[in-house]
């Protein structure tokens, strides 16, 4: 009797609380994204993580060029068109007219977007004497990582709607860089007003952009809120409100998705994928990630300086087994250093077969016997490698079959990368996720001679490097494609890496959501999304 009474009281109390939780007015069409972390800030040039860009670059801002959603194809953004000079050094951008800026309690714009905003946004990051350069910490990580300072010679305003950018040397991937989040365009007028008011950091904490959503508020570690921008130049988004509900734990995010407390979650647990596929209310979207996971051979250390040894060890590894055990179907075998979704991917390249007998013979030919080596494995899951430790164990077992003894080595993630850069490893697992959809961003960054002293393979091949440098010099897509295809042939022949896999990225989304596309660069873009 007492238990029944307690149960009734608990039930009534819960119902009362639930009734009190119902909002008074009807809700606007609100899309809720279960974001996996809190943004570090709202100026994308100052930050480097996907969570930062999702909360700033994508909803609030635009760039001169944009990536077409779901692809890495560069299309016009705030620049309607652009042309390059014959020598590839000068790019002239024609800016879009009639693009409106957001307004907030601090600022009401008096003009549309124009060339002054381009100059402000880039010069702030580039020029150390710019009044805004040191504001909010002044760490322009991606501007540095994409070597923009070395690339840029000048940025000039020709007129209000024409900007000329001159480079120090031809750099074909340059326009792709301008579509990246760090190159988002900020309001120069807002910056001037805040400087005059002595509140320069407000530009970065209360952002103003031209993007599809206006920033409303941010409750740290809880919510980021946006409202659809009625005057957005591409057309007002279909949803009225956009809310990022910050949910760190993936299992909890999955529960929220099922309960309808959010409409989309990123990076689900692999263990939940089967349940997501079967769930009646969920669509499990997927796309091959713009990434590659690999085992790099330290070509500076004997015997890995001998290409026969690298080939032999590659042939001894059972790649399919790794895909089955480690990726559990969420990966595709890699044979090239770039993923198949990237233009210039050379499908004619033939991968090394899994052939332990041939591997043993090739090792003998190279005069190597009783090899003792190491396999470095990352301690953390990465987009291109869900379990490096397990992968290393499988490779260790495969190599033992051909008489190669390998010790598995691991360090804390930061320490791991630091030591690899110092070349302490014999072989090491690592990977890469693309920044801008250009093959140069994979091959030159990871395998070019310029990076040879700090990358995993520490490999410098003049033929390979020459092809990449030639591909930088021309903006002719056909010519660049041929050069990169040739580079991939050289890569496979020289085998500085055992290419493992390209992982698939998954996005579970509720069935009532339409218009969302998985983006190869991992960005979450909501401007075309609707709720039916």
């Amino acid at each position: 009797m007492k238990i029944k009474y307690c149960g009734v009281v608990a039930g009534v109390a819960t119902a009362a609380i639930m009734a009190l939780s119902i909002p008074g007015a009807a809700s606007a069409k609100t899309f809720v994204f279960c974001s996996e972390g809190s943004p570090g800030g709202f100026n994308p040039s100052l930050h480097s993580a996907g969570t930062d860009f999702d909360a700033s670059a994508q909803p609030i801002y635009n760039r001169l060029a944009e990536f077409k959603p779901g692809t890495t194809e560069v299309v016009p953004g705030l620049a309607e068109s652009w042309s390059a000079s014959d020598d590839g050094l000068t790019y002239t951008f024609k800016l879009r007219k009639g693009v409106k800026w957001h307004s907030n309690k601090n600022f009401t714009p008096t003009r549309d977007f124009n060339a002054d905003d381009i100059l402000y946004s880039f010069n702030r990051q580039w020029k150390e004497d710019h009044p805004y350069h040191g504001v909010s910490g002044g760490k322009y990580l991606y501007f540095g990582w994409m070597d923009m300072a070395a690339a840029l010679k000048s940025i000039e305003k020709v007129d209000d709607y024409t900007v000329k950018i001159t480079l120090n040397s031809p750099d074909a991937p340059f326009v792709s860089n301008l579509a990246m989040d760090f190159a988002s365009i900020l309001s120069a007028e807002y910056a001037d007003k805040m400087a005059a008011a002595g509140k320069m950091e407000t530009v970065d904490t209360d952002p103003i952009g031209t993007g599809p959503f206006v920033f409303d508020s941010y409750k740290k570690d809880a919510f980021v809120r946006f409202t659809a921008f009625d005057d957005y130049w591409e057309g007002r988004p279909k949803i009225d409100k956009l809310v990022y509900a910050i949910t760190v734990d993936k299992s909890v995010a999955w529960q929220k998705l099922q309960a309808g407390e959010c409409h989309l979650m990123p990076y689900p647990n692999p263990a939940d994928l089967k349940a997501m596929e079967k769930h009646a209310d969920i669509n499990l979207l997927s796309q091959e990630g713009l990434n590659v996971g690999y085992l790099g051979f330290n070509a500076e250390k004997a015997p890995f300086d001998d290409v026969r040894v690298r080939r032999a060890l590659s042939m001894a590894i059972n790649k399919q087994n790794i895909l089955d055990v480690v990726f559990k179907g969420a990966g595709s075998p890699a044979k090239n250093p770039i993923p198949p979704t990237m233009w210039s991917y050379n499908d004619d390249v033939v991968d090394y077969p899994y052939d332990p007998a041939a591997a043993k013979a090739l090792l003998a030919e190279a005069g190597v016997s009783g090899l003792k080596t190491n396999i470095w494995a990352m301690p953390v899951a990465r987009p291109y490698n869900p379990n490096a430790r397990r992968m290393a164990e499988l490779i260790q077992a495969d190599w033992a079959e051909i008489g190669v003894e390998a010790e598995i080595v691991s360090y804390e993630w930061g320490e791991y990368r630091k030591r690899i850069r110092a070349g302490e490893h014999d072989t090491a697992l690592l990977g890469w996720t693309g920044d801008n959809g250009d093959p140069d961003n994979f091959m030159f960054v990871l395998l070019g001679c310029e990076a040879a002293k700090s990358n995993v393979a520490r490999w410098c091949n003049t033929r390979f490097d020459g092809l990449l440098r030639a591909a930088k010099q021309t903006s002719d897509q056909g010519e660049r494609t041929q050069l990169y295809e040739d580079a991939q042939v050289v890569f496979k022949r020289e085998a500085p890496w055992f290419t493992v896999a390209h992982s698939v990225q998954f996005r579970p989304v509720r069935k009532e959501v339409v218009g969302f596309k998985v983006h190869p660069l991992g960005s979450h873009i909501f401007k075309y999304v609707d709720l039916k």
Partner: protein
Amino acid sequence: MRSFLLNRIALLVPIFFGVTLIAFGFIRVLPGDPVLALSGERTMTAEKHAELLAKLGLDRPIWEQYFTYITNILQGDFGTSLLTNRPVLDEFLELFPATVELGFFAMIFALVVGLPAGIIAAVKRRSFFDQSIMSLSLVGYSMPIFWWGLLLIILFSSILHWTPVSGRLSFMFDVDTVTGFLLIDSLLSDEKGAFGSAVHHLILPSIVLGTIPLAIIARQTRSAMLEVLGEDYIRTARAKGLSPIRVIGLHALRNAMITVITVIGLQVGVLLAGAILTETIFSWPGIGKWIIFSVFSRDYFAVQGGLVLIAMCVMTVNLIVDLMYGLINPRILHTR
């Protein structure tokens, strides 16, 4: 009373410096640094790495960094977060009320359930009730918070739909921050239904966070009560014909409370540690989640400043607990 208080405060000074040494040293002992944490798989020469470290002010000698850190703290400057570029104190104060609110209700839950359970277990010693309470408290103490929280979410949120999954408030409500305590701010706001939503969201996290303190309080209360109930003055009180409630509630409980208050005071530290996991599971925007993320990101200044601020809170609570001893048992005030 004054000398007692001054003695306790004087002890805080060496403790404070010890905490600063631990906070400063601990994050630097961990492998990796903020530049490595930010750079991902990007290749970087040693020179570039050193240049970026210098920009963050982390290239100076260790003793100079510590000296700057201490002098700044003594002036109320707890540093600037490397990730957000905001003052660490601002970040802490923005998130601290959420942790206090959760901790407060977790403690209420632990006391409201744990104290009576411990008292009844002691009074009805060796009964089925006593054995059940002790078994359940052992289970509660042993359960991993993470697992317990997920279990409750799956049962009450996903299956029964009685409680929300996580967070502090439904996304439908946008309540302005006035005090930082959402129950108060939601009442002050004009968002109808926000208060109910805030209460609703508090239920599961409070139960999860309060489970371990509940188990400890129940056991300690039982132990303390058993010790006191065996004393001669209790037998005398019963012999005088006092009612059981007067004997237990007035005479026994008051003397048992000294031990129990010690435990409650220590639970503040446990609550802050447990808050890290509870806040992560329930996406509760508090300092526990913030400090652990700062450690993972190697945000040196947030960790240095944040740990000291948390330690100051724990020290303050323990000081209050010490003072409460004096109120319950005035003899303690005069003990040297």
